[in-house]
Every structure is written in C-alpha cells, then in structure tokens.
C-alpha cells in the first residue's frame, strides 16, 4: 500500500504537480497575470453556469429536472471515455518513468494501481471543472439540502472510475499488439482511431436499442422525472448515480450510492486482475521504435532546394503529424468532433431536421450559425498555442538561424490555419446538406469569414505561447495536457461566439452581403494589427526563449 502511495505521488509529481507549482511561482511574480487567469476562469464558469441554468430551469418547468443530472453525467462519462483514451495511452505507455520504476522491487499491480490513480486524479480536474458549477446551480434551482452537495462530491469522485477503466482496458488491449507493428507511431495513431470509433459505435448501438416509441415518450413526459429513465439506460452506473442525487434525503439515496460504489469497486478489482499481465507486456518498449538503418534513395528530388517557407512549413507539419502525442492532442479533436456530430445526426431520426428545413431560412442567421460552430471547433485545435512549447529546449533554434523572427512566427502560425480548413469545409458542407440549403453566397462568405477567424485565432494563440512558453518538459504529453495556456483558446472561442450570437440576433434582418462585408473588414483589420505587432515586436516576443 505504501508503495502504491509513493508511486502515485512520484507519478503525479512527474506529470502534473511540478508544473503547477512552477506556474505558481511565476504567478507570484506577476499578480496581473494571475488576475487575468482568474478573470478568464470566472468568465468560463459564468458561461457554463448560464447555459446550465437555462437548461435546468426549462426542465424544471416540465417537471423533469432530474433529466439534467442524467444528461450531464452521461456527457461527463462520454467526455471521460474519450479523454481517458488519449491520457491513458500517454500515461501508461509514453511516459518514460516506467523504465525507471521497473528495476525497483515493486509488484506490477502496484505500478498499475498508481498509474491508474494518476489518471483518475487528472480526470477529476476535468470532471470537477465540467460538473461542479452546473450541479451547484441544479441544487439551487431545485432547492436541494446540504446533503445533496455532499452526495454530489461523492458521486463526482466515484462516477469517473468506470469510464476511465473502460478506456484504459481498451487502450491496453490495443497496445498489447504494438510489438507486432513495424511503425509504432503510426500504429498508435491508428489504434487511437479504432478505439474511439469503437466507443462511438457502442454508443450508437445503445442508442438504437433504447429507441423509445412515441406513446412511451408521452407516458414518461407526464410522469415526474420520467425522462431520466430513458437516458439512464446508456451507462451502467448512471442510474445509481442519478438516483442517489434525486433521493438524497431518504434512505434510497444511501442504497443507490452503495450500489454505485459496489459496482465501481468490483469492476476496479476486475480491471486490476485482468490488466496486470496485459499492461507490462505492452508497456516496455512501447515508445521505442526498432532500429533499422534505412539509406536514402538517390532519387532526383532528394537534394533539390526549396524556398525557406516551404521547407519550414514542411518541417512543422512533419513534427506535428508524425508525433502521435501531438497529433492526438493538437490536431485530432477538431476532426473528431464534427465526425461524431455527423454520425449522431445521421444515425438519429431526421424528423426534426425536416421540420427545420421547411421553415424559412434566414441567410444571415445560418451564416452566423456556421461561423459559430467553426469558431467552437477552432478552440479544439491546439497547434498555434503550442507551436513554441512543442519544440521544448530546441525552441532556441529559432533564434540562431538566419531567418527573421517575424517570418518564423508566421510560418509557425500556418499549420493551424491550413489544418483548420478541413473542419471548416466539413461544417459548411454538413450545414448545407442538413438544412438542404445550397446557397453559393452562404458557402463563400462562411468559408472566408471562418478562415479569417482561424487566422486571427492562430496569430493570437501564438502570442500566448510566446509570452508563456512551456519549454521544460520531460514528456511531450505535458505540452498539451498540463498546459494552462489552453484556457486562452476557450476564452477566445467563447468571446467570439458571444459576438457572433449578438450579431446573429441583432443583424438578422440585414442583408447577408453587408453583414459578411463588414465582418470581413473588421477581421482583416484585427489581423493587420496583430501582424503589425509581430513585425515591430518580434525580437522582444522571443525573450522568454533562452
């Protein structure tokens, strides 16, 4: 037991807490910086709070308030499932600490438990950030007693265990095959896709099996908190968790919580027993590629010289795409989300969509919707916000090569802009298709404005990374996962989306041409300002990189 605690502490230190403490020191030096971060935090919390308040209030009027708990916990479970896939892959297989721990007299299960503890603790951060505020608001709206909050905390501690276990187990099963793979990096990227695909398919399957007929639906609606039963079928521990919170004041609450705890502990023990052998078999050498000499093919193109910008961009792209950690953390989320949405949309009933299509479509509003969705997806692309940090100690390279710093900053912004075009086009096509709205002006305008927002986003985020680079890391995993700068990505998208929503609301009656023209001009002007800033300040911007 002592070994487990010790290991957990060490793994935690090497992964999260060291970085937190170092950033704390920085903050002490600069109160303004800390204030800024707190403000952004409050901002994010306020938006979350507002959204969940709207939802709870609406459901409460329909006498279905507990549905919110079910839906929110289900979303949390899906969030953990997907996030834990990437995290566990990194934590269990890429962090190099395992090679230092293996020679010590520690039993394999102890390593496993300690690693899982770390995974769980990192998941708790997400879970608490995602659920705490909505739960408090739920408590206030429904007038819940103190016990409700206590149970909420307990549920939030126990509930994430099973989704994390499932993700871990899936990752381990896949990774045990990694030694048969020739190209390990490629194998890891492909297995990641397969696992996520698997999770999505299982979800869809569950969805279809629990399809509810219209009579049942009406029956449930008329019953207080009846709808929640429908949702509860999706996930094994969802029902006891929701029941605990709904019946918090009676003995039924304790029983439900006991049920949740029991299921979680049983599955946890089962997981430890099953995964012990599986883990160590795949863990050792997972990150080491077999050494094979490969000589260059003396083809015509081998030594041709390219323009500096092309060569630089190629290097950036290779570093991004050939590194499974960077690819999964920085690029993938933006591609995955639209695909998941699309699958859910096409698999679900399209009755509601047909109704929408029959309504009159306001081009300006549709334009705002498309730009809004694209802006949201942009905040999942972490390429620019890590452009400097990803290079780690090598970031000084920028400073001693004879390429102007201004140009290098722009080259480093390009991958994010180029890659963002794919989800942007996808979203525009999907909207056109779903609404059956094929309007050339809409397509062109939404494309142009989305790309302009993407350029602005990329420019601003690289400033964040230049001002607060994270260059001292042991594993590449830390660059994204333990990087506080990500919050600026979300802040950007939230601010933008609010502006877009206001625009959609107030300018709905304006001509789409005028709206598009004005927003493009404003965006171009902002981009020009940031570009000017780069030109003038490029030297000082790299001061932190030494």
């Amino acid at each position, binding site marked *: 037991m002592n070994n487990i605690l010790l290991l957990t502490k060490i793994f935690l230190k090497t992964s999260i807490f060291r970085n937190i403490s170092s950033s704390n020191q920085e903050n002490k030096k600069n109160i303004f910086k800390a204030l800024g971060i707190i403000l952004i935090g409050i901002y994010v919390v306020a938006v979350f709070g507002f959204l969940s308040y709207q939802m709870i209030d609406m459901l409460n009027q329909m006498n279905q308030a507990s549905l919110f708990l079910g839906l929110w916990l289900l979303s949390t479970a899906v969030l953990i499932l997907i996030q834990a896939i990437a995290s566990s892959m990194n934590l269990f297989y890429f962090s190099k600490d395992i090679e230092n721990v293996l020679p010590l007299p520690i039993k394999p299960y102890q390593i496993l438990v300690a690693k899982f503890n770390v995974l769980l603790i990192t998941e708790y951060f997400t879970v608490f950030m995602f659920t705490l505020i909505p739960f408090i608001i739920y408590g206030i709206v429904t007038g819940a007693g103190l016990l409700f909050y206590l149970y909420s905390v307990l549920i939030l501690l126990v509930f994430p265990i099973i989704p994390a276990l499932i993700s871990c187990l899936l990752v381990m099963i896949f990774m045990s095959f990694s030694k048969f793979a020739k190209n390990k990096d490629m194998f890891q990227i492909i297995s990641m896709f397969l696992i996520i695909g698997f999770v999505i398919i299982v979800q869809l399957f569950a969805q279809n099996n629990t399809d509810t007929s219209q009579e049942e639906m009406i029956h449930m609606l008329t019953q207080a908190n009846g709808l929640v039963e429908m949702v509860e079928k999706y996930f094994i521990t969802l029902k006891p968790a929701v029941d605990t919170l709904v019946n918090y004041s009676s003995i039924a609450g304790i029983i439900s919580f006991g049920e949740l705890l029991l299921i979680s502990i049983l599955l946890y023990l089962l997981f430890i027993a099953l995964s012990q052998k599986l883990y160590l078999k795949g863990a050792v050498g997972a990150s080491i590629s077999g050494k094979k000499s490969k000589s*260059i*093919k003396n083809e015509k193109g081998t030594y041709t010289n390219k323009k500096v910008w092309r060569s630089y961009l190629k290097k950036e792209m290779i570093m991004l795409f050939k590194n499974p950690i960077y690819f999964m953390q920085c690029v993938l989320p933006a591609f995955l989300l639209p695909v998941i949405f699309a699958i859910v949309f096409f698999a679900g009933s399209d009755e509601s969509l047909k109704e929408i299509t029959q309504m009159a479509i306001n081009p300006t509003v549709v334009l705002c919707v498309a730009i809004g969705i694209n802006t949201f997806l942009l905040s999942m692309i972490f390429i620019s916000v890590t452009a400097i940090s990803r290079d780690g100690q090598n970031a000084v390279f920028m400073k001693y090569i004879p390429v*102007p710093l201004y140009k290098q900053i722009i080259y480093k912004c390009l991958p994010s802009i180029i890659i963002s075009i794919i989800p942007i086009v996808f979203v525009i096509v999907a909207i056109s298709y779903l609404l059956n709205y094929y309007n050339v002006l809409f397509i062109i305008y939404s494309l142009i404005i989305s790309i302009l927002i993407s350029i602005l986003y990329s420019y601003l985020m690289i400033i964040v990374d230049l001002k607060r680079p994270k260059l001292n890391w042991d594993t590449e995993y830390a660059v994204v996962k333990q990087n506080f700068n990500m919050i600026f990505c979300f802040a950007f998208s939230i601010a933008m989306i609010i502006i877009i929503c206001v625009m959609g609301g107030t300018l709905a009656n304006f001509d789409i041409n005028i709206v598009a023209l004005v927003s493009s001009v404003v965006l171009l002007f902002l981009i020009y300002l940031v570009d000017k800033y780069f030109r003038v300040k490029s030297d000082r911007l790299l001061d932190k990189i030494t």
Partner: protein
Amino acid sequence: MITGILNPDEGDILLDGKSITKTPMDAKRQFGYVPDNPDMFVRLKGIEYLNFIADIYQVPSEERKEKIEQLAKKFEIYDDLGSTIQSYSHGMRQKLIVISVLLHNPKNWILDEPMTGLDPKASFELKELMREHAKNGNTVFFSTHVLEVAEKLCDRVGIINRGKLIFVGTYEKLKEQFSEDGSLEELFLEITENE
C-alpha cells in the same frame, strides 16, 4: 550572445564585421552552431533535417549533395540518412548536427560540448576537421569539459569558473602566469581552487 540566443545588456558583438544586434541575419550567416543537446526535431529523417538546414542557409542542390555525401560518409551515417532521427543513437544525432552545421561552409564554428557522445573514430574525425578549419584561417570556438581536448586542440583557451571568465590566452601564457609546468588539467585545478 554570439549566436543571438541572448540579447546583450550593452555593447555589441561583431562576427566578421557583421553586428549580431544591428544586422542579425547577416551575422547569423557567418557562423555554424552546434548546441549541446543533439535531440533536434527527432521525427524528421536524417536527410530531411539536412535538407531543411540547407534550405534555411540556401545551399544550392549540387553543393549540398556533394557536402552531405562527403560528410555523412566520413562520419559513417550515410546509410542511416533515410531513417528518422528518433532511431539514432546519441552519437549519431551529434554527428548529424555537426554535418548540418558544416553544410553552408561557415567561416566561424561555434560548438557547445561537441565531443559528447561521439565514438572514438567520429571524435577523431571531428577534431581533425576542427584543426583543418582553423589552419585555413577560420575560427573554431568551442566549449569542453575534457581538458586534454582543449590542451591538444586550442590555440587559445578561456577558463570559466562559476560564470566568471578567469583566464584567456594561450596555453604557454597560462603556464607562464601560474608558473606551473603541469598539464592543463593540473593548471585548471590550481586556478579554480585559488579563486
């Protein structure tokens, strides 16, 4: 500071007459720099890295082909240039960085602990290259913890103790100044202990 990584608080540094603060691009073309950590851009293939550096210094294709082939064969990594740097040993990575620095024929070489991780043969080859380069009227400026290397290779040595430069000059001058007849290692210990 010579390479532009740090900004000087005051004053300037000229590399062959080019100021690192006023005309940094011209100054940066005057040297080739080998950093102490050779783990650069490890996802690139060896050849991709060399081509990238050659593009940055705008080395013409014919010249780069000749240089890469000549140097990679000399350092015995020619057959590995098609693999990713990730699969290289520490020494191979070091060799690759050294090759990349020599591609644009810089007159001044700046090397931070260049021998670390090199096998005896590669280390010998590099020392030969350094000596030859200096003999042709160029500058080789490098740091090392191996004092035998400094003793055998350097025309002038500088000794830094806890961030302070405590001696610059020839080996002979050093011996004169401290009236010792020992090796550089002994002199070094003597000087740093007295500080």
